[in-house]
């Protein structure tokens, strides 16, 4: 028999998430049926688009990279009880500052140019997100509303900078876009014949780094303390306001890193159209991972596969790629309310519990 401790871990760490994902696909199948299509066909196309050959698999990994970094960012915020819905905007601001550095520098080796561009992107994300952090710390403005509003503002900032002559608009282009980043700043391809770039390695390194930050450093301790109970944190001498600003900033820095890594690895420039949606999916990634940095990895991989397979599914069948939003939303419902899954699996009746995804107990404005 499996030891009891392991069984509990298996149940909450493996069985419930896997069952939640399965239930999410089931809800998606109902939606496909309602849309008058064949779920079997749609899901086959989805799987084919995500995994069918080495190129499709590489593309899935390409989409996984931003999800890992963004998911880590949102998860970091959750651990301090902060709901960073602004990852999408921070992703854009990070891309902008990073791409600016990327095309401004010339002729240096990649080992110098890439870190400069990535750090510039992280700095952009950090500053942008700390606006929301500062507003919460200083005025108690709820970060959910401010980060969403900052998203819209960031889209307009991006459109302004990229569309305006003399700012970031590349000369002599038919559609507005920034100049290409310097060749040295482009992330090298690590899988010949595909678009899979060095960003995957960076994302894989970020996972233990964020875990270490949260679990083994003073900053991480303060962050978790604020997430558990702000009053207690304050009473034990932690500056709650400063921790909130820093956590939002770090969360934004990870989102900004996702943006610039995507630019340096895939597009090599920025356009003024905003349609990625990675930042919103990242909330689902972090929720599915229950804010555990290690669990972000499989969750991001799942979402990368969904993202990549969805476009193929839309091409092959009548089903819109928006279907994955339904699947994602259903997955989070089942993850956030394990009581539903337990009830469906007829598991032993456990006392109903609140899942502290954001670890917050009480939402209190900081005085």
């Amino acid at each position, binding site marked *: 028999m499996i030891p009891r401790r392991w069984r509990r871990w298996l149940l909450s760490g493996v069985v419930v998430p896997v069952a939640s994902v399965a239930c999410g696909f089931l809800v998606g199948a109902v939606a496909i049926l309602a849309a008058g299509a064949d779920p079997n066909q749609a899901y086959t196309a989805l799987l084919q688009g995500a995994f069918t050959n080495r190129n499709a698999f590489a593309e899935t990994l390409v989409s996984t990279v931003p999800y890992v970094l963004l998911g880590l960012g949102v998860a970091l915020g959750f651990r301090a009880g902060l709901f960073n819905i602004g990852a999408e905007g921070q992703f854009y601001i990070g891309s902008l500052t990073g791409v600016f550095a990327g095309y401004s520098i010339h002729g240096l080796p990649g080992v110098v140019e890439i870190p400069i561009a990535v750090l510039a992107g992280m700095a952009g994300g950090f500053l942008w997100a700390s606006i929301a952090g500062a*507003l919460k710390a200083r005025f108690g403005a709820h970060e959910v509303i401010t980060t969403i509003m900052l998203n819209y503002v960031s889209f307009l900032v991006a459109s302004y900078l990229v569309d305006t002559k003399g700012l970031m608009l590349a000369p002599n282009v038919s559609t507005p876009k920034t100049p290409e980043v310097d060749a040295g700043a482009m992330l090298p391809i690590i899988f010949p014949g595909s678009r899979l770039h060095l960003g995957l390695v960076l994302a894989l390194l970020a996972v233990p780094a964020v875990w270490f930050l949260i679990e083994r450093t003073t900053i991480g301790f303060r962050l978790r303390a604020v997430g558990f109970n702000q009053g207690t944190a304050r009473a034990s001498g932690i500056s709650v306001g400063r921790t909130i600003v820093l956590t939002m900033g770090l969360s934004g820095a990870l989102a900004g890193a996702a943006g610039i890594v995507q630019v340096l690895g895939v597009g090599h420039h920025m356009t003024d159209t905003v349609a990625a949606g990675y930042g919103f999916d990242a909330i689902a990634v972090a929720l599915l991972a229950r804010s555990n940095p290690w669990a972000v990895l499989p969750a991001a991989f799942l979402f990368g596969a969904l993202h990549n397979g969805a476009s193929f599914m839309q091409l092959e069948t009548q089903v819109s790629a928006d279907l994955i*939003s339904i699947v994602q939303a259903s997955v989070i419902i089942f993850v956030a309310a394990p009581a539903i899954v337990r009830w469906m699996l007829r598991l032993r009746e456990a006392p109903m519990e609140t899942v502290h995804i954001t670890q917050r107990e009480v939402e209190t404005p900081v005085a």
Partner: protein
Amino acid sequence: MNAFLSQLDPVSLLSLMLITATPLTLAALGGMMCERSGVVNIALEGIMLTGAFIGYGVAFFTHNLWLGVLAAVVSGMIIASLHAVLSISFLVDQIVSGTVINIMAVGITGVFYRVYLEQATTAGPGTLPHWQIPLLSSIPALGPVLFKGQFVTWAMLILIAVVHFVLFHTVWGMRTRACGENPRAAEAAGINVYFVRYVNVVVSGALGGLGGAYFSLQQIGNFLANMTGGRGFIALAAMIFGKWTPLGAFAASLLFSGSDQVGSRMQGVFHVQVPLQFLGMLPYVLTIVVVAGAMGRAIAPAAVGRPYRKS
């Protein structure tokens, strides 16, 4: 000077402000019913989007705009009941539940729009008729603003009064506020907290759904992806700025819609080349300023956002 006056013609400005404040006010009223009973409803954005979509779809296929409005309201109530089940019965974090619904609304509207409406070639259902009250509408200045308009805007004006009356002058309103301030005390006083919260969340869905009908059936007579454009969140800011009161929220909504209107007219008036993007930012920046500025002084219902578990 003439150009200046025609750009800032107060009557047309006021009536446009009132019209564009409609979905904001309705969603703010919905958020208020919800939060006064202790449940945060960040799902209003998704509720409005779904309402706009379902309302348009039903109006399109039945050729009846009123059935469309009804369907928008009902779909809002259905989505809101999901929020109620998750956040009240299953104790899911209310922000998580709301976020889930917003994501799902994008998916549902996207999937079904593509299948049923994207390739539709027949003419759309049009927009709700313009009504005017004879005599009253010919009062100079005030008349065209208040007594000429379309259904959803009129409904909003009436609902402001209704919500105000319900919240502050009825037993139900008192119970609602009790559940939002101190659910345990309310329970002890014999109030069924779950029931009160369920009803209020569903009512907020109806208000949000009606707000959604504004976009597709009153404003343009069509459905566009993500056509609510964050108005559900701006409405929550209006509710906060209005200190969780109907009249305050209405005034705040007018402020937001006014900033939108004035922003878009500024260019013509002052002949300054303000980039379009900055004008577009105005309502969002204003929302941030308002939420930051009002938060300290506006006191939220004490128990808002906290799941309640019967003892």
